[in-house]
């Protein structure tokens, strides 16, 4: 690994100052589980890393019933999956974050890093999308926000400018009769990169009879995680049934743009999008109906 400098500022302003004018030669370092691997492999060369773990705004988890949930970009996964409020109110997020690596990776890796690394297969991103997550970004011109589904632009590419920093991700408070679920398919039972990942969320009307809102987001079947908007449109106003979920699955398959690589074939991925969309919708429905453990 090429030599580099290490900075550990304690304020967002100092991070931004360190990034100014450095192009891609200075990178924020959160959990490091992607960054250090890429640097060691020679895929990435930097002059300095800026450790963002000492900055309060990036390290907090805040949940307020009326306001929702804010997770700092440098919060390690283990804190998210073990947080009582998140477990209770955002189980769909826990589904996804719990799948990021093994125990030791979760001890270090962050949801913010998962997002900024922008892998098409990143487990947390479809979950963020279906939960309506908003990214809070600090930059020279101040703060701006971006819906999670618009954050990634391509494999490893995001909307972040070279002088910007992801500070946190905010989730709205869950509506009544709302449920979300994330499922992925991997060949082994742990430790793999998703062959396909599907996040789904649904909200039901007060009679528990019709879907008032649905979102389905797909991972590893395109250059970025994909919000399958046709699926949401199709489900809105429908009864939650195997028939409507089957149609949703078909539309999700249409929205997917899978390729063949060493982790899966195009046909397999397209097929799995259908399977997982149905299963994730069932999981989300179950949670919407109150069975909060729902899921697989």
């Amino acid at each position, binding site marked *: *690994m*090429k*030599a580099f400098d290490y900075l550990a500022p304690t304020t967002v302003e100092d991070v931004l100052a360190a990034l100014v004018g450095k192009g891609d030669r200075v990178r924020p370092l959160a959990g490091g589980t992607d960054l250090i691997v890429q640097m060691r492999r020679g895929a990435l060369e930097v002059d300095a890393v800026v450790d963002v773990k000492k900055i309060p705004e990036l390290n907090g988890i805040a949940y307020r019933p009326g306001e929702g949930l804010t997770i700092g970009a440098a919060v390690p996964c283990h804190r998210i999956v073990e947080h009582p409020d998140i477990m209770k109110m955002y189980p769909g997020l826990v589904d996804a974050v719990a799948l990021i690596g093994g125990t030791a990776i979760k001890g270090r890796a962050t949801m913010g890093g998962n997002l900024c690394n922008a892998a098409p297969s990143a487990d947390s991103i479809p979950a963020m999308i279906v939960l309506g997550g908003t990214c809070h970004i600090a930059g020279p011109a101040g703060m701006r926000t971006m819906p999670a589904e618009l954050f990634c632009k391509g494999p490893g590419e995001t909307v972040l400018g070279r002088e910007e920093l992801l500070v946190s991700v905010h989730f709205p408070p869950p509506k009544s009769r709302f449920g979300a679920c994330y499922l992925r*398919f991997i*060949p*082994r*039972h*742990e*430790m*793999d*990169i998703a*062959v396909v990942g599907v996040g789904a969320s649904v909200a039901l009307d007060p009679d528990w009879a019709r879907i008032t809102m649905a979102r389905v987001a797909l991972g590893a079947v395109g250059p970025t995680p994909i919000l399958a908007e046709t699926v949401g449109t199709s489900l809105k106003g429908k009864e939650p049934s195997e028939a409507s979920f089957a149609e949703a699955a078909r539309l999700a398959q249409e929205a997917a743009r899978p390729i063949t690589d*060493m*982790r*899966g*074939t195009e*046909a*397999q991925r397209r*097929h*799995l999008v259908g*399977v997982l969309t149905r299963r994730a919708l069932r999981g989300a429905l179950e949670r919407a109906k109150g069975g909060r453990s729902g899921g697989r």
Partner: protein
Amino acid sequence: MSKDKRSTPEVTDYEVVGTRPQRHDAPDKVTGRALFGADTNLTGMLCGKMVRSPHAHARIRSIHTARAASYPGVYAVVTAQDFWWAKDRGTNPDESGETIKYLHENMLAQEKVLYVGHPVAAVAANSPHIAEEAAKLIEVQYEVLPAVTDVREAMKPDAPLLHEHLVTQSLSKPVQKPSNIGSHFQNLKGNPTQSFSQADLVVEREFTTSTVHQGYIEPHACTVWWTVDGDLKVWTSTQGAFGMRDQLAKLLSLPMSNIHVIPLEVGGAFGGKLPIYIFLEAVAALLSRKASRPVKMTMTRAEVFLATNPTSGAYMKVKMGATREGRITAVQAELYFEAGAYPSADVIGYLGFATAYMFAPYEIPHGQIDAYDVVVNKPRTAAYRAPGVPQANFPVEQLIDEMAVRLAMDPIEFRLQNVVREGSELLNGTTHGNIGAEEVLRAAQSSNHYRTPLAGPNRGRGVAQGYWGNWGARSSCTISVNGDGTANLVTGSVDLSGTRTTIAMQAAEVLGISPDRIQSNVGDTDSIGYTEMSGGSRTTFATGIAAITAARDVIAQMRGRAALLWGVEVQDVTFERGIFVTRRSGEKQMFFAEVAGKIAETGGAVTGTGNVDPQGWGGAFGMHIVDVQVDPETGKVDILRYTAVQDVGKAIHPSFVEGQIQGGAVQGIGWGLYEGYQYDTRGDMLNPGFLDYKIPTATDVPMIETILVEVPGPNHPFGVRGVGEVPIIPPPAALANAIYRATGVRVADLPMTPVQVLEAMGVI
């Protein structure tokens, strides 16, 4: 191996054998004190780093090392030029069965690179990071050549030739035309062609298996110091210190006595750290000589995958015939195994094992096997636990299952109908000695697992069996008795999994003392006699015999001391269960420790020696039973229950035997479901890491139930057979048979990944 009388062990009423004492080296290994390959730290030590080919097949035009050599912190740079004496070495294998020219070229490429990762140069610097930076400064110009990574492609007439002068070795009329086929050999028994025409049922399929890696968690690592006085000290993680020494003597043209190989703890090997192929040590030696400093070389995980010695992928066509009553009449097989970049060293011998053992569980009147060793642009292949046999067993055990299904017979019953017994002839012309084939099948049949019905949708139960012949070979052991009745034991067998203890237990049984009274050590090449590598399931058998021999030598000497103390003749002293006894002039007794306490005053040290090369070891069978559930929508296979039944001869330490079986089974499960090298069209490996080369995790397997069948093996005083190899053989076929019963489809290609299963089911 044949014609040994059905033997019974000399003793059956054991004090030590069959118990489960604590392992001698385990405290070191749970506290972090144990020193493995990369744990040596010497003053002034440098770090070595290889420069490797990015191309699968290319001619080296030039190598420029000047920039690297002058980089601050760099002490030495070497290329194949530094092996100037290697140039003239021919391709005739030496007595170790390995072609020294290939060994040289594989370590540092001379004219051509033959796989991605093939070393072309190396540097030594004062930190690993500097070495890495300097390695990048070495400029190599290549003329890229077309690459071939598949055996079928490599055998085509217009395939690119890896070696322009390679002609196929065989016992038939010599061929002159160069090809990528390194060797061809054949086993033929009877008249299979005619016999097939008379069979009631003939099954035939094509199968492939992927290149797989032994997957030891410890990357190769060594530290080498070529001192100014011409001695070479080598600290390394190897399966055989003496084999390593002998290979280095040849590679470096040094006297064996000048080379001191100190074997460190080995973080997994499974055939991948045999001392036959040398990757780092000789290069580190050259760097050390140039730098006049000790040099440590460690591989990265990617280097381990790209450039060590995985085991062969294979393409196989197998055909079997049987009568309506379920008697096998004839078999025929063609095996094409990847050799990797160079023809296989004969001593690696996986084709010999594959052809000898693939049909070994069955009485087969007529059969023919043709086996081919094919070079391709991949790293050189070598042994992986039961070398060659898991590949060849995969077709056989699936076809056996298919025949049982078509004849509506229970799969174990079908196997029992064709089971081999002592005297049964294998297809290579040897005969089975004293074996426990039938006992294993009956134990599987009556196991709780097999008798418990499997219910539920998408579930299936599969069985498969496998055979490994085990091994003997040279081993040495010394036992020195201490004045307090303890003893220090030294063997030359590198301890991969607890053999310090299984060897000490055998000595303890003879000496009549507790095994924790014996300090059991692995010697270096200066401190013990020649001992063959730890492999082939030989160590507890052969080094155990060396220890028993040494212990008996100790007892013989101590009887002499007791006789001296009692003033009687040595023949008047007997030794029973740890007590020396004389009945001459009234009965007298002395415990082992009492005599030990007197050795100083009765002639000095007592050291027993055992230098052995035991013959007539016994082979072993294993039968595995697996229940799976297949997700019909995703093709994913979940293992619900797993049982491994095996004839272990005599389990010296049952926990270790169970551990060997469990570990081997899970490696076989990995081979069956998850593992395989993946390549792009340029011959570059896509998955050289544990993220995408998927070995089983703790979540992929259930508890592995074991059933130890003890049919005493021949020619070992306690009836030991080998244990380690057998359990890796049956899992792929057992899983395939279970998948068939769960889904109705047969998967003929390994690994049986979800996508393979879905494709076989016609879902995608």
